[in-house]
């Protein structure tokens, strides 16, 4: 019954039921029904991702502006420059696509695609609402981390192929950084997985029906996750691969037009994914007050984390590359091992 529900997930299930009824009535094979179902979800997801990117870029501009005593875009589109990002996107589309003279043309072309596709695929297993998940895989979280580690490759490809010393340094830095911070990132989430006993995203959300993991001993894991997650998406204070004042623009210095747009988009979608995982794993995902639709609750928490990341970005200075490694390997990694130990004891005691 659609009117009784407040949740987008229930609406989706209701639609799927109608589709199944319709297909059964027409005698359409199961394969086609399945394809239509997933295809519709994929299209919805793509629309959502593009809208998210637009909103995030606009939000970043506004948040940074207000932190810096500015207003940010104010004119384009009328109300507080809401369409500035759209205008910027059109500008990016129309720009000349420059490939440096001695660049490795093929790798240079492929790198933006390699960075963008995994960041899209990560959305597959994010539970937006009850039942509203692309594929509720039993290895859900591993898929996301698997995809996000491909991003390293693309940044490295982009840095290497551009045939520029700054991009090369940026690429090498990012390879070192993302590999080092992937460990604490995964280990911090391990605490939650141990508590729940499942890698499935829906199980993890359901386990937080009563209390968010943020308010349990998993709090330490949350802190580690936020730090490592910031490093994973290359945002200040860990924006070493693109360190503007040192490496001009880092690995994407030689990119322009749509290809640069892809790098930028993937940065924002990655930010969203990292925040969405934080919301799912530590803040109860779509769990929330019963009067609030699950997706609103989920997006609210996600955007809260996004805001936190932006706050970091516009107030913190940047780490130095070797100190960053020290911090990751000598502090964050032992801390996340300690976290696992602590959670293990906690889980045992609770039993």
């Amino acid at each position: 019954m659609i009117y009784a529900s407040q949740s987008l997930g229930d609406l989706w299930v209701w639609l799927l039921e109608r589709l199944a009824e319709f297909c059964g009535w027409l005698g359409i094979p199961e394969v086609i029904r399945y394809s239509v179902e997933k295809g519709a979800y994929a299209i919805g997801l793509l629309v959502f991702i593009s809208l998210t990117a637009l909103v995030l870029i606009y939000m970043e501009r506004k948040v940074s502006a207000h932190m810096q005593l500015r207003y940010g875009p104010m004119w384009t589109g009328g109300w507080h420059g809401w369409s500035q990002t759209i205008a910027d996107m059109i500008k990016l589309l129309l720009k000349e696509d420059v490939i440096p003279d001695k660049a490795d043309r093929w790798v240079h072309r492929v790198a933006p695609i390699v960075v963008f596709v995994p960041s899209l695929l990560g959305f597959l297993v994010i539970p937006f609402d009850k039942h509203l998940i692309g594929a509720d895989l039993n290895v859900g979280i591993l898929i996301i981390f698997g995809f996000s580690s491909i991003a390293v490759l693309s940044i490295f490809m982009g840095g290497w192929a551009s045939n520029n010393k700054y991009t090369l340094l940026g690429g090498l830095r990012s390879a070192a950084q993302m590999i080092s911070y992937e460990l604490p990132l995964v280990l911090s989430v391990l605490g939650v997985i141990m508590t729940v006993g499942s890698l499935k995203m829906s199980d993890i959300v359901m386990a937080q029906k009563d209390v968010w993991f943020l308010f349990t001993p998993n709090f330490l894991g949350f802190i580690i996750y936020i730090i490592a997650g910031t490093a994973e998406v290359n945002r200040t204070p860990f924006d070493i691969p693109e360190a503007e004042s040192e490496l001009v623009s880092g690995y994407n210095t030689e990119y322009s037009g749509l290809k640069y747009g892809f790098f930028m988009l993937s940065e924002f979608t990655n930010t969203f994914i990292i925040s969405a995982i934080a919301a799912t794993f530590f803040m109860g995902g779509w769990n929330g007050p019963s009067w609030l639709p699950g997706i609103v609750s989920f997006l609210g928490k996600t955007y809260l984390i996004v805001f936190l990341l932006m706050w970091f970005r516009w107030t913190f200075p940047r780490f130095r590359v070797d100190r960053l490694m020290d911090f990751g390997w000598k502090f964050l990694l032992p801390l996340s091992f300690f976290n696992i130990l602590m959670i293990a004891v906690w889980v045992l005691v609770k039993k």
Partner: protein
Amino acid sequence: MTETLKNTGFEEMTLNMGPQHPSTHGVLHLLLKMDGEVITEARPDIGYLHRGMEKLAEKRTWGANIALSDRWDYIASMSNNFAAVLGPEKLMNIAVPKRAEYIRIIMAELNRIASHLIFFGTYGIDIGAFTPFFYAFREREMILDLYESVCGARLTYNYFRIGGVSADLPEEFVPGVKAFIKYFRPKLKEYDTLLSTNPIFMDRTVGVGAISKEEAVDWALSGPNIRASGISFDIRKEDPYSVYSEFDFNIPTGKNGDCWDRYMVRMNEMSESARIIEQALEKLEPGDIMAKVAKVIRPPAGEIYTHVEAPKGELGVYCISDGSTMPYRYKVRGPSFVNLAILQKMLRGLKIADVVAVLGSIDIVLGEVDR
């Protein structure tokens, strides 16, 4: 070449940092030889902004040279003006009226605050924190507004004259400065919370690019750079020009001479400058702003070296007069130029990320380096 390079057969990488680079503060070109991220050799290549100021000065009258001096260190033009007028005044034995002296000092100290604010903002950007820049510029804007009310210009003031200053203070200036000082003092604390004591910021700057006392003297550093190394050298105290001897102010010094000390010396200097301005405002009394000076300025033949404590260090002008309306020789000792020299020594062995931290901390202006 480092040991690893010799043993492995890998090559050094030459990186041209600048002249088009976001954090070389203009058009400085650094030739870096690097072993991975570690710098083995650094060579500053200057001259991209060379305008031949000293030669130009020989073809301009003494008065017109004040306008040229605005373009040396263009973010502290008042101090440049100060240096440009002291020489001819001494040669001609002009006694500058008291009011003009105090006005000059207020202007120079406000300019020191403005210059250090730019340092604070851009240094934040160098280290990777973008936000402090806008806070610094908010306050600097007020100083520029005050300047604009006096001389109509916001960057190249051309305000000092041989024998005084070009215009008297407008009515709203003194209350404006008082209001600014009152507003500015708490802001210094805000800067400290925003950047100075940030753990990441301290991690990037403490112990980086340290200059020992001996090195600082050997390389003829001046200004905040030498004071950060623990040597209390300030021309306002050592060789008081104008009426600086009447004022009560401290000279902030550092201890280790690292980037953080250089940064903190400048932050502390801002509050000392505010103190000087307050005292000068109290002593300011109505009176003349120009001494009686001949229309055509012809200093008697002779030579003289005068120097002022500019925000960046010792700004000296060595001028030779042959008794004509134009200087025979006009040598400028720009503090940025002299301070820049030590960079090649400091950078060796540091990481590329430290280049911007060190370069930012010695606070150069390319307009003064190249002239």
